[in-house]
Structures are given as C-alpha cells and as structure tokens.
C-alpha cells in the first residue's frame, strides 16, 4: 500500500508527517519525491546506501549532416528546438525526450545521447528503507527523477509494506507524477486562511485523480482553524490534529524522529497510521511493540 503525503506549500510539516508515519510502520519504504530539496534522509541517516544515476535521452545534432530543412524544429511541440541562422538550436530544459526529432530527420543528423539529470539514493534505517531522489540544480523539472524513485518504490512494495511518498510541495505536474500510483493521499494543512487556500489547491488535485484522501491538521492552537472548519463543512476526513508544540519543533530542527523520542508522538502517529489503513481499507500494520 502506498500513501502519498502532500501539502500546498513547503513548511507545513509534510516531511514531519511522512517521516514519522514511515517510522511507526512495522516495515516501510520512505520515498522522497521532493527532488528539489529532499530532506527526509536527514532524519533517517540511512546506511548501506547505493546510488543510481538518472539520465534522459536528448538529441545531439551533427551540423555537418544537417541540411537546415527545419523539419525537426516544426515538429517539436515542446519548442525545444528553434530555427536560428538556418540551423536548429537545441534548448535542453524544454526537451521532453520524445525522440521524435531523431526519427524524422531526413538526413540522420540527429542521434540521441544520455544527459544526467539527477540521482536516486537507496539506503536503510532500522525498519525503514529510504529512497531519495535528487535533481541536479538548474533543471527545469524533476519528473524523470521522481519516476525513478517511484520505480524503486514499486520494486520494494510487497504486501505488508507501507510505502510513504513524500511529495514535492504545491500542485504542479511533478506533484501529479508523485501521487499517480498512490492508494491514499494525506494532505497536511496549516490552521490559517493561507493554509486553507493551499489545502484547497491540493484537494482539487487529489480529486482530479480520484484519490481517497484525508487531512492532517498541523500546528493547531486554541484559535480558530479555517482549515478544520472547511473540512467539517465539506464533510472531509480529518485524520489527525497535531498541536503546535515548541518541543516538537525543536525535535524537527534537531533532525530527530519524533516518534522515537516521545511516546506521546508515537501514540499520535500510530493512531494516524491505523486511521489511514482503515480509511484505505487495509489491515493495520503498525508496530505496537515499540
């Protein structure tokens, strides 16, 4: 079973929820798809790590063979090729690696070469297998790194294993990529008007993909909580309310896994995972012995 954890923007506690859910599960895989700024591994400190390079195919143009016919430029619907001074010019960050230009060039002037875009690091930390996607800086999008992370997750996904997908913040196409195969989505929201606005964007996204979902309210205080009110009004599942707590904030900034430090948080996350399992229609697989 795969659970995606997402939020409308960074800093809502998305990684806190994802990391601690993975930590309380008996046997889990934590897959960090926040490839621009992966930070889950900082908590898990995985060992026995192996690294895979992620590459994509991009065209390489042999200008000695190119006749300047412009066919490739007119074909590329992603506008990764421009016709400048009678020759095609290539813009790597717009290329979707469709391979079309290579196939159609009448002079066989285009071949494909591999271009590194990032890496995936796999490691272990007690009951958790960690998979971390890291996009090389300066890349326009991390989709292919995310795909590689999810491929690794699928290889490790067996019955009884809980896969936790830590999604990138926001609601852009890389988030869609991250939740595509999730069985259940956990939406982390802050208790403010802005928090609600971000929550609504993510709700729209998961509804678009018809994913079952529930909301975790983070940083809750005694004050009014627009996100909570919205969930009640729309009859949406609130999975847990995590209180605003200075000690919890300190644990996070120290890179500690809260459920390993305090039975209070352990209890909260075990019941959160139980609730997700029930909501998603699976048997509970939490590690109650710890």
């Amino acid at each position: 079973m795969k659970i995606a954890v997402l939020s409308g923007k960074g800093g809502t506690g998305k990684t806190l929820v994802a990391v601690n859910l993975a930590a309380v599960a008996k046997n889990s895989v934590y897959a960090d798809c926040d490839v621009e700024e992966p930070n889950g591994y900082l908590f898990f400190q995985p060992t026995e790590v192996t690294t895979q390079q992620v590459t994509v195919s991009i065209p390489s143009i042999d200008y000695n063979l190119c006749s300047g016919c412009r066919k490739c430029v007119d074909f590329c619907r992603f506008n990764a090729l421009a016709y400048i001074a009678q020759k095609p010019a290539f813009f790597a960050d717009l290329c979707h690696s469709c391979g079309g230009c290579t196939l159609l060039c009448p002079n066989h002037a285009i071949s494909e070469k591999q271009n590194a875009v990032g890496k995936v690091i796999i490691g272990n930390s007690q009951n958790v297998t960690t998979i971390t996607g890291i996009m090389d800086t300066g890349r326009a999008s991390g989709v292919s790194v995310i795909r590689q992370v999810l491929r690794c997750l699928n290889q490790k996904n067996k019955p009884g294993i809980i896969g936790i997908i830590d999604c990138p913040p926001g609601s852009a196409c890389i988030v869609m990529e991250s939740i595509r195969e999730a069985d259940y989505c956990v939406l982390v929201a802050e208790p403010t008007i802005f928090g609600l606005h971000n929550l609504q964007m993510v709700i729209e996204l998961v509804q678009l993909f018809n994913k079952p979902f529930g909301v975790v309210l983070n940083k809750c205080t005694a004050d009014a909580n627009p996100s909570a009110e919205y969930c009640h009004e729309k009859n949406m599942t609130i999975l847990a309310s995590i209180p605003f707590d200075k000690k919890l904030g300190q644990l996070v900034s120290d890179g500690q896994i809260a459920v390993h430090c305090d039975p209070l948080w352990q209890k909260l996350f075990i019941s959160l995972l139980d609730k997700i399992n029930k909501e998603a229609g699976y048997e509970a697989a939490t590690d109650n012995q710890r």
Partner: protein
Amino acid sequence: MNIAIPVDETKTNVCASLGRAPYFMIINANTGEKTIIDNPAPAASGGAGIKAAQSVIDQNVKAILTPRCGMNAAEAFKAAGIALYQTVSESIDQSLAAFNKGDLVELQNIHPGFHGQGGK
C-alpha cells in the same frame, strides 16, 4: 532592418511580457512601416518563450524593444544576433523615438522561465 516590440490587446501599448504578448509589432526601420503579427506562443504547450522568439526571428528582426525577456528566448535572440533593448515607457511611439535617439540601454531584465513542465 526590422525592429520588434511585444504589444498588448490594444495594439498601441508595449506588453509587459514578451513570451505571452498577444501580438508583436514589426517596424521597418527604413520605411517606418508597421505591421502587427500574432504571437503563436500563448497557446504553446510548453516553451512559449522559444516559440515567441522563433516567430520574431523569422521576421528578419535586428532589434527588440521590450521591458523583459525570459532566459531561453534571450539565448535564442543572442544566437540569432538580435539585440535586446529595455523599454522605459508603455507607449510604442515613445519607445521607438527613444530607440532612434539612441537612448535605450541593453536589456538587463532577463528572468528564468516559468515553464517547469519539462519532461526531465
């Protein structure tokens, strides 16, 4: 030589965006003749900046007057030997007059693209 300016719906003002401008005005610097062409880019599925740049490059342009420009498009213009000048006014006529007097400076306002949709 030809000069290009991104223009808005009114076709009388400089458009704040180059890639997403609805039209380009192409001015023949010798005759002063002005033509309006459609920018095909607003409907582009990605790489609007390059698509817009392509339509301008195909017009035999040597200079572009614009308030800003995306990184990819700027690179394409550079490869095509087209100079970019920073407009200081919304008015097309004032911008042209300033350009003709040599008052416009080279564009500094080059921003990273807004795409983030690449298949990488």
